[in-house]
């Protein structure tokens, strides 16, 4: 497969990823619950995260530790001080009309600087550098009934306001939308393995992209809600900017909004205040020292990361590196694989079935891996049904697809649809008799023509919807032909 690179176009893609630290019990600066998903709007709020006058922020130290874990996992070097700045701008989603964030100028330092993420794109290794990581508070969630451009009012949900948010900024090291997609996959897997975000990552990771191609200015794309859309938005931008180039123009510096419904980017009215956030040190939060000891303490508590796990998969289970890479690109899948291997002695077969059937079916049905309902026990039960020759491999694939789509267990699918293999010779003989009766001509030919035999076997399979044991069927047909 081609790399997908547009040679000579000099495409440069950088990402700004926001990861919510929702595994924390509380928000970044107050005692409200951080896990707001599924909660009615504006029920997880207090005077502090609503920005009431007189309230003060108090730093959640656990949030700093979770942020440090991410920094360590991305090989980023952690600053010796945690300093917060105020980023001042007026917007409906900011209860204080400033965001407590971090800053890398004016005496400020981000949580960490530098670092890299290594990942595979179509079998090739790719390394993307991290510029910086900082900790900040999430603004409230805005809902625009209809679309952002046509809505006549905005709904504000402050449940999200104040949730600890990590901003991870990359260098513009990606050259294709594919690379951006796989970078995000890898980053997500790392965050999942660290356990700093809630199990269901949906919406816990948001992403803005910036892209420039030869001769054009840097264009930012905001409001991209899924990784798949990051790829699509970037693909769209490359085409749009290429067309501009072809017409002799060039992209101008602007912020564009990804319109999910129409699958295009649209230019947003540029805010005049955007360029000057009047950053200054947050006077209500004294700088927190980050000691060497604190960092090592956090480092010692780090769980296994995807790269280590991949190594372990190849050595412990004897599966190829490619398989191990795919399996560890998602924590839930990696966990699933290991659970399966505890129940089943053939890791290679498990890996094959997960990669070629489970994942493909999940992708096709469009459900998230996190929402996958099939358990390791059920999955292994399916493999065992093949081993015990209760169903054929071909039937098994059908069963798995059906199980994933409907949420039923594979065994239930087999039972409900009567898919058990027919191995009873008498039963098969009865069906063979029917077929012989229907296709007398073929029976006559079959004595000298091997092809006609295959035709008869096929007719038995058709009548049994593939459930008849092919070997027994073959044997019965041949012996019946001899009798004639």
């Amino acid at each position, binding site marked *: 497969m081609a790399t997908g690179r547009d040679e000579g176009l000099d495409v440069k893609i950088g990402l700004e990823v926001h990861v919510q630290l929702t595994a924390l019990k509380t928000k970044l600066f107050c005692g409200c619950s951080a896990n707001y998903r599924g909660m009615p709007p504006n029920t997880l709020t207090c005077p502090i995260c*609503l920005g*009431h006058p*007189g309230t003060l922020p108090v730093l959640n130290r656990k949030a700093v530790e979770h942020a440090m874990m991410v920094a360590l996992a991305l090989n980023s070097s952690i600053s010796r001080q945690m300093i917060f700045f105020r980023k001042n701008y007026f917007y409906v989603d900011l*209860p204080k009309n400033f965001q407590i964030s971090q800053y890398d100028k004016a005496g400020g330092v981000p949580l960490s600087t530098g670092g890299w993420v290594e990942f595979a794109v179509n079998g090739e290794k790719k390394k993307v550098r991290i510029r910086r990581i900082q900790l900040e508070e999430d603004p409230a969630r805005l809902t625009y009934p209809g679309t952002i451009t046509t809505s006549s009012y905005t709904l504000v949900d402050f449940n999200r306001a104040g949730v600890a948010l990590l901003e991870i900024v990359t260098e513009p090291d990606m050259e294709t939308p594919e690379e951006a997609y796989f970078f995000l996959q890898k980053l997500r897997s790392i965050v999942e393995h660290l356990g700093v975000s809630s199990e269901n990552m949906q919406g816990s990771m948001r992403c803005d992209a910036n892209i420039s191609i030869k001769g054009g200015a840097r264009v930012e794309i905001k409001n991209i809600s899924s990784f798949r859309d990051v790829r699509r938005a970037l693909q769209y931008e490359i085409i749009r900017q290429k067309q501009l180039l072809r017409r002799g123009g060039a992209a101008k510096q602007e912020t564009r909004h990804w319109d999910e419904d129409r699958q295009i980017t649209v230019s947003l009215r540029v805010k005049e205040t955007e360029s000057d956030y009047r950053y200054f040190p947050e006077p209500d939060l004294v700088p927190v020292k980050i000691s060497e000891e604190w960092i090592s303490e956090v480092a010692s508590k780090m769980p296994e990361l995807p790269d280590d796990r991949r190594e372990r998969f190849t050595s412990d289970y004897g599966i190829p590196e490619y398989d191990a890479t795919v399996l560890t690109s998602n924590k839930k899948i990696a966990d699933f694989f290991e659970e399966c291997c505890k129940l089943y002695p053939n890791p290679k077969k498990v890996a094959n079935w997960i990669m070629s059937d489970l994942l493909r079916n999940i992708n096709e049905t469009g459900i998230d891996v996190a929402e996958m309902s099939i358990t390791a026990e059920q999955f292994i039960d399916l493999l065992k049904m093949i081993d015990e020759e209760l169903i054929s491999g071909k039937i098994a694939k059908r069963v798995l697809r059906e199980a994933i789509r409907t949420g039923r267990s594979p065994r239930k699918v087999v039972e409900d649809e009567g898919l058990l293999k027919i191995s009873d010779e008498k039963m098969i003989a009865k069906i063979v008799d029917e077929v012989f009766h229907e296709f007398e001509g073929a029976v006559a030919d079959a004595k000298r023509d091997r092809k006609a035999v295959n035709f008869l076997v096929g007719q038995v399979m058709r009548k049994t919807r593939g459930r008849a044991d092919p070997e027994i069927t073959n044997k019965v047909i041949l012996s019946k032909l001899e009798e004639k």
Partner: protein
Amino acid sequence: MHLNSLTCHELVEMIKAQTVTAEEVVEHVFRRISEVEGKINAFISTFNESALDKAREIDEKIRRGESVGLLAGIPVAVKDNICTRGKLTTCGSKMLSNYIPPYNATVIEKIEAAGGIIIGKTNMDEFAMGNSTETSFFGCTRNPWDITRVPGGSSGGSAAALASDETILALGSDTGGSVRCPASFCSVVGLKPTYGLVSRYGLVSYANSLEQIGPMAKDVLDCAMLFTVIAGHDPRDGTSVPRRPCDYTKALNDEIKGVKVGVLKEFFAVGLDERVEKSVLNAVGILEDLGATCDGASISYLEYAVPTYYLIAMSEASSNLARFDGLRYGFTAKCEGDWNEVFSTTRGEGFGGEVKRRVLLGTFALSAGYYDRYYLKALKVRTLIKREFEKALSKFDVLVAPTMPILPFKIGEVIDDPLAMYMMDIDTVPVNLAGVPSISVPCGFVDGLPVGLQVIGGFFDEEMVLKVAYAFQEHTKFNLKKPEI
């Protein structure tokens, strides 16, 4: 007997001994308020019913022999920028003229836990920006010593309420002199604590890095009692300093023999009213008579203190006050249009002139290209001034200076000259820049108008500051003089 004209330490004894009830004390205070408020205008709101209920509860507890706190049954007036749950907290602004906080400031919880009774909220310069209480949306408070004059500010309501016996204790807040200035102008006692010693949780921020809530009282012992109650570490304030609790009343004795007093030379320079100077130097003489050793002390960079203070305060204020957009609470302008128009109109109508001036100047000072030149430079000068105080306080136990360089001025006399107004803070703002504690204690009268002596101490050395102020008070008794209203 007018119970409202007594002090906290006198009344607590009487209430505990059941010679008077807390209910009677509160009644006397409210009677006084209804008598003189028409002239003084010290309060924005009063809580007659809830205060009387609380008083009866305290009386009941005492009757049952249960233990009651240090401030049992004592009325406390609270500056209207300190949040009181379920009770109007306006900051003297139209912007918050309808704001009812859903929570109590830490100091309010502490006062109530000690048996203190919140009787009402006092008038102040809008968002504490001013030193005359003239910028209040609710009209100016008048000085009980001369009702044609200002009471000082921004905690003018609290000081005037004490001076006119409308309360027993009061809380103020001091960002650049807002406790000490009105204490001086009204002849009461006001303490600006060391930064970090009193929780700011629930104090509506004007300039976070400079301000502290401070106790105000009719004498130094009362001030120490209230301070003992409100001081202490609060996990809800990240700038609060963990320290062991301390009973500050224990430090008070007349014995200041050998205490080293530094007289701040630069604070007696140009701009100081000669009559004030005479009065303060006379006070220094009294300290010497009491056995203290007085010597000249010096603070360099004093000429930069006022601009430095205003740059920092305005910058922080521009950000602190951004939250007032009419969306979640407070005043909202009647206005058609999108959110940008609504919040702009709300802020245009909701803020007064002085607040707008400071927000605009602060916004400017933080802007790209000016940040280094103004805000960052101001922080550097602040560090220099802090070091100057540390240096001086390594040689002396306390430093003394006038609290205000002038006598209380006429209402309307200076309000249109902001620069002249800012320059009056020359003797108080350096203390906030340094973060050290300072008290203003009455030190005499000129033509019937009060003068205040400022006693500044080292970090967390409130005991020494209170002790010197107490010794001075016990030998001068200026605290006993009352205005005729």
